[in-house]
């Protein structure tokens, strides 16, 4: 039995919770809203954050491998925050093969930052009886913060590894491979329970097949409000946030072209000088 399961007295072995964030379809044409605090998102179609679909696939594969090698059942639970959009990404997770879903939905949840969402996730994980592993995508396609999973680990008091490109269950917990700068790969062993943030491209997320979509209709989706999480109004939404967005704008493009005259050799020499002294890139 996995340490997490033993500690919590659960009988499912290897329970993985995956956080799925609905983000505007990356193919959308984006326009900044009137008060310049966000994009006009009411009319956009929302999809599951790409790194999160990789996290979901990683969770399913991890549980499948554990079930195959130890004849212990694994359970993948998907979790999302938000209204209908979140319910839809959860349904997709269920259609991919997750066993059940937790939907955090409340009018009070509008707005907020990564810290607020990490707190809510940590609360929800505890309320659901804990887990062996919590997975998130490495970052979101819309905000790109890259911190929600790590903050949730801190709040839960769990070990964590970020930018994970490979994961396996081992006797002591999990072995994870992390991508470092400069093409280096670091291998870690983490005791469970732990949090991993999953890098893009780690796997090929499976499609939600039509059979999976039909089966998902019959799976359990719990909906928890702020009250269910036992959080005060000031802890969630924009009130609970530590950061506020003050402005969103499209960067102005600045093309300043300089033509270097002279022979190729002279021009090259001047280019090197400019790159060294003006641009300071070499």
């Amino acid at each position: 039995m996995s340490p997490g399961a033993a500690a919590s007295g659960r009988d499912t072995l290897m329970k993985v919770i995956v956080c799925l964030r609905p983000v505007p379809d990356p193919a959308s044409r984006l326009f900044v809203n009137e008060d310049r605090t966000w994009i006009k998102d009411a009319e956009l179609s929302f999809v599951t954050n790409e790194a999160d679909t990789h996290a979901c696939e990683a969770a399913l594969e991890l549980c499948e491998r554990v079930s195959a090698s130890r004849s212990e059942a694994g359970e993948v639970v998907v979790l999302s925050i938000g209204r209908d959009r979140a319910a839809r990404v959860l349904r997709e997770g269920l259609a991919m093969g997750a066993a059940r879903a937790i939907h955090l939905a409340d009018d009070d949840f509008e707005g907020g930052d990564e810290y607020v969402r990490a707190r809510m996730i940590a609360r929800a994980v505890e309320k659901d009886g804990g887990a062996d592993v919590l997975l998130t995508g490495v970052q979101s396609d819309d905000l790109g913060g890259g911190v929600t999973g790590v903050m949730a680990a801190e709040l839960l008091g769990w070990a964590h590894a970020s930018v994970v490109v490979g994961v396996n269950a081992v006797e002591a917990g999990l072995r994870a491979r992390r991508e470092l700068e400069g093409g280096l790969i670091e291998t870690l062993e983490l005791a469970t329970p732990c949090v991993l943030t999953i890098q893009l491209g780690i796997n090929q997320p499976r499609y939600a097949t039509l059979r999976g979509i039909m089966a998902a209709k019959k799976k359990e989706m719990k909906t928890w409000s702020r009250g269910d999480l036992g959080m005060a109004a000031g802890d969630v939404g924009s009130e609970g946030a530590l950061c506020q967005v003050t402005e969103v704008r499209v960067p102005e493009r600045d093309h300043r072209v300089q033509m270097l005259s002279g022979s190729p050799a002279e021009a090259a020499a001047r280019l090197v000088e400019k790159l060294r002294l003006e641009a300071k890139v070499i």
Partner: protein
Amino acid sequence: MPSHRGIDFYHIEELLTDEERLVRDTVRRFVRDRVLPTIDDHFEAGTFPADLVPEMAELGLLGANLPERYGCAGMNNVAYGLIMQELEAGDSGLRSFASVQGALVMHPIFAYGSEEQKQRWIPRLARGEAIGCFGLTEPDHGSDPGGMETRARASGGAWVLNGTKRWITNGSIADIAIVWARDDSGDVQGFIVERGMPGFTASDIRKKLSLRASVTSDLILDDVEVPESNRLPEGRGLRSPLGCLDQARYGIAWGGIGAAMACYDCVVDYALGRTQFGKPIASFQLVQEKLAHILTEITKGQLLAWRLGKLKDDGRLHFTQTSLAKRNNVRVGLEAARLARDLMGANGITLEYPVFRHLVNMESVYTYEGTDHMHTLILGEAITGIPAYR
């Protein structure tokens, strides 16, 4: 090639259930990942991407609106239509494959076959382990299939088939052909003709300039002996093949919009990015008029298709309503492709962009499953009570 963005000017998305959206998103992703990267090469080479068949089967796209007890997905008709829309946004050849397999092969076995035929064939066809084709059209009988010359002669408890079928999608790659023939008493009947039956051969039609990523063949039936157990027992009369066509036309009503959406999406990007006379061509009124026209037609077509699906799910669909939508939405696809081609100038004629491929594909779609004229005459008869076919 990026996938098209779901054009949704009228928030038709809100009319879809979560399951319907998920099905659409799955197929859209499949088309983006698996179809678009190679479809232009297949089109240029004139080859069908057969490697995608098992993947489509695995997703559940073949005969998706048939029941689960035969190994199908048991989807409603709106979800089925969305599958056709997304496949056609990829390429009409792939949609044609799926239409023939589902609506023209699995459907007639389901609707007119014996329980044994259903058990034997539908699950295999759903898994893509068997491919089917549908033989109605003949060299001398297209719009008027009632004139068919293919004969089925009863002979000692079996049937002997003779004749030629032309323009048969999937013909040479098919394991079974649903062949329609007249029996000795003059009734049209359907037969499951299996690959390898002596006297049954298929040869491909070459030099096509449309639907190049789809197989189109002649079927030759030369004294082919077919056992009685391969006759579709419930399918007597021309009504039966026409009933199959009604299923396929339903899917095409969605498909035409898929092709239009792909063209529109491509041309909007192009018009915003292409500069002439110091400005993006998208800033000229003549260009905007064409974009506005395509968007308007797509939006109308989406509403037609959605409503058609609802009527079909309610069991209230009349074939004249399918005719209206097939006729309209294929026109929308064809016109969108033509206008997009225009706005893209010389680039519009290459395979670097999807519009010319859609344009030439839509020329076939305009003709098959009842020509534009035939659907006009069906509506004419519905309006006036006067048939004007002959």
